[in-house]
């Protein structure tokens, strides 16, 4: 009997491998994190937005992109409010307004509420908020193109259970929002108002109760469906797995500290490699405990390479260019200058558009 195909076919409309989308999005995010140039950041956001619009499916999670956009705007807004109220570390000469300053006791020296609001300070906050917002939008793009639950399917066996915990936590938030809406409507039915902070706070306890009940219900459902079944492995192997993973993680942490403080550059890199190897060994051994198999995994073809590659290339080029021409990546605030769009980094950001052409169109199934 010929063996039937077990991966999904790589022709026709299909879902791209979720790992490729997440690599691409994280690449764009890494690129965004290197710069505070608003033109470059807006370009990166536009690139991510264009790819999402051309290549997202019609599943419920694909609509989450708008939420992330709003979240990004909110981050910028909060950053600006803080800059106005608490002042800014950037020394500035262009005073826009002077707010009444709150007198604070001497022990609160260094903290300022109110006072001068300068154009430099506001712009600094805006650029900084924009960078954070761009990062959020990149994560949102990945979320809209490949839901975290699909990414979970591609996890190695040993990480699966940790991954489930993450995914359950991520679905917790939307459910919470739905609960709050329902209970606010119910408050209106009792004659209370459904607007304002008090209405939201008033439903807090019932919402938490609901959320807890739902979590227990989900845990029960998953258990009855075999989640957490493990194969019997000799205790010696189980102990070795735990030791390898723990040592590996410790090694990675210590070496990361060494790398960041810059005085342990000599020993940190070898230790990092050793730690990674040890952790990988632990994961491989740990996979022997997992009995899971995978139903129709997504194939990894040239298209996946091109999508993931475009993200990684954009990030790599940005990092390289930013070390060569830091001025273009962080427009000067003191003195104030208008930001300009540097040609080469802009081209690097445009590489991120590749998936709009090379990624397969998603199947239209949900209606």
């Amino acid at each position, binding site marked *: 009997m010929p*063996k*039937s*195909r*077990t991966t999904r076919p790589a022709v026709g409309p299909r879902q791209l491998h979720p790992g490729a989308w997440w690599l691409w999005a994280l690449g764009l995010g890494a690129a965004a994190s290197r710069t505070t140039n608003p033109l470059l950041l807006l370009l990166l956001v536009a690139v991510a937005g264009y790819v999402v619009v051309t290549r997202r499916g019609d*599943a*419920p*999670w694909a609509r989450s992109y708008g939420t992330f956009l709003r979240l990004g705007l909110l981050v910028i807004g909060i950053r600006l409010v803080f800059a106005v109220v608490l002042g800014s570390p950037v020394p500035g000469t262009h005073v826009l307004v002077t707010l009444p300053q709150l007198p604070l006791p001497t022990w609160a020296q260094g903290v300022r509420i109110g006072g001068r609001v300068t154009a430099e300070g506001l712009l600094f906050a805006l650029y900084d908020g924009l960078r954070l917002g761009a990062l959020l939008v990149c994560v949102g793009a990945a979320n809209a193109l490949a*839901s975290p*639950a*699909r990414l979970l*399917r591609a996890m190695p066996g040993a990480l699966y259970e940790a991954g489930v915990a993450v995914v359950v936590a991520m679905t917790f938030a939307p459910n919470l929002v739905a609960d709050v809406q*329902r*209970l606010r*409507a*119910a408050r*209106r*039915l*009792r*004659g*209370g*108002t*459904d607007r304002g902070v008090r209405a939201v706070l*008033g*439903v807090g*306890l*019932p919402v938490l*109760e609901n959320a807890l009940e*739902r979590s*227990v*219900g*989900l*845990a*029960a*459902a*998953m*258990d*009855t*469906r*075999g*989640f*957490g*079944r493990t*194969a019997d492995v000799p205790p010696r192997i189980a102990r070795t797995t735990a030791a390898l993973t723990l040592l590996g993680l410790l090694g990675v942490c210590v070496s990361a500290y060494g790398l960041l403080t810059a005085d342990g550059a000599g020993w940190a890199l070898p230790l990092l490699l050793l730690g990674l190897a040890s952790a990988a060994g632990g994961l491989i051994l740990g996979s022997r405990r997992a*009995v*899971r*198999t*995978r*139903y*129709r995994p997504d194939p990894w073809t040239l298209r996946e390479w091109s999508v993931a590659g475009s993200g990684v290339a954009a990030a790599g080029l940005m990092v390289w260019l930013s070390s060569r021409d830091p001025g273009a990546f962080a427009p000067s605030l003191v003195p104030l200058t208008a930001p300009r769009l540097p040609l080469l980094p802009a081209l690097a950001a445009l590489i991120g558009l590749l998936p709009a052409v090379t990624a397969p169109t998603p*199947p239209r*199934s*949900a*209606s």
Partner: protein
Amino acid sequence: MITFDQVSVQYHDTAEPALRGVDLTIPEGELCLLVGPSGSGKSTLLGTVSGLVPHFTGGVLHGRVTVGGRDTRTHRPRELTDLVGTVGQDPLAHFVTDSVEDELAYGMESLGLAPEVMRRRVEETLDLLGLAELRGRAPSSLSGGQQQRVAIGSVLTTHPRVLVLDEPTSALDPGAAEDVLAVLQRLVHDLGTTVLMAEHRLERVVQYADQVLLLPGRGEPPVLGEPAEVMAGSPVHPPVVALGRAAGWSPLPLSVRDARRRAAPLRARLDGRTPPPPAVATGEAVADVDRLAVRRGPVPALRGVRLALHAGEITALMGRNGAGKSTLLSSLVGLHRPTSGTVRVGGLIPHQARPKELIRRIGLVPQDPRDLLYAETVAAECAAADRDAAAEPGTCRALVSRLLPGIDDATHPRDLSEGQRLSLALAVVLSSRPGVILLDEPTRGLDYAAKERLIEILRSLAAESHAILLATHDVELAAELAHRTVILAEGEIVADGPTPQVVLSSPAFAPQVAKILAPSPWLTVPQVVNALATEAAS
């Protein structure tokens, strides 16, 4: 296949055991129906089979439950996955993945089956349950009946020998319920699966059962036997059994078809008589919906609905899942803004009115009454309701005593049974004396006794000239209670008229008695019993 050996279950915070003295065997390949009043331990019994009791719920399990030779005390639910498939009351709580196909494969992945086997079984199951069209859809985007079928499919792929279902059709419209039951029939017939199923809506399921397991509650021992025998003495029974008992048929018929074959003499006795004509609403219109259209997201939920509610009239709103029933109720209380058309309730426009004023005119008991209750005790809930309604202190408590006699002030609303909770929510809504009362799916999860009480309460409220609108899938409830029935489909009203006319003209919405005694216009068992009594008297 399933053996209970002197099983009893005691939860920590209760004085009485939830289940006791269960000592019986359910043979392989049977469809066993578990019946009994609320609180008699049905869910607990199902839990002992799937291993959720005591592993997930806590409590102490005495005795021994074995399924296919495995003791559920020593095997955790995950170690029974290949043997027992469990589907709970709410299919949405059951879903783990985000597409139908992955959902079907999930259990097999956990078991570590070979990819080729998984692929084949997923395709087989898609065909078996008629889900092939939906394979790429997200489970949360499906209708209630489809979700229930996906939930059943997701546990079938591991080829369990036992299927445990808790109220699989309670939330479904009659058509979707038929689909789900047809699937279960097929499993029992073709695959020899043993099915253990708890259900309140006996009129839908009892004719499919091979065995009925009755938990009478109040400490009486469980009874397992032939459906007709058990039904003869059961405190919970469908209308067809009630009619059979009233007419003195033996053995009792369980399906409409069996009853029809017996009913010729009864039809002859009733010939020439008609049920008393339904009361015609004389009250004024207290709520008026005119050419109402509502969009929810991209979907039009209501299109051009016209409806007037009259004081003293009970109206049943029926239609399949997703037909727009809940949207219509929500629009009446101002939770949705009309896209076009108008809603007026006692001179107010609901979505613009202040909630404090609106609740004096109209009140809604939502599908889950718990949404409406947020206090820690019944007494606190009543006090809060009086404050919300600006009513005399004690108003709500007096209503609770009337609707729910003998309830303790200190009880937590969550510890009440479904029926008690519904009554409490109704009392809260009534505290502000609204002229219009809306109920969304009030009989979901209610046993027959609780339903009887609800019918009495609603009748007396209508007699006090409240206008009542209830959205329901329960055709028996509509036939017994409603003066008028409105049927919605795709957001439009497709039938609106006196209940006998509407339900008799549609097989999907006709109650069992009407099907048995057609073409005579009898709807309910009490009507027939009254007619027979007057015949005997004259």
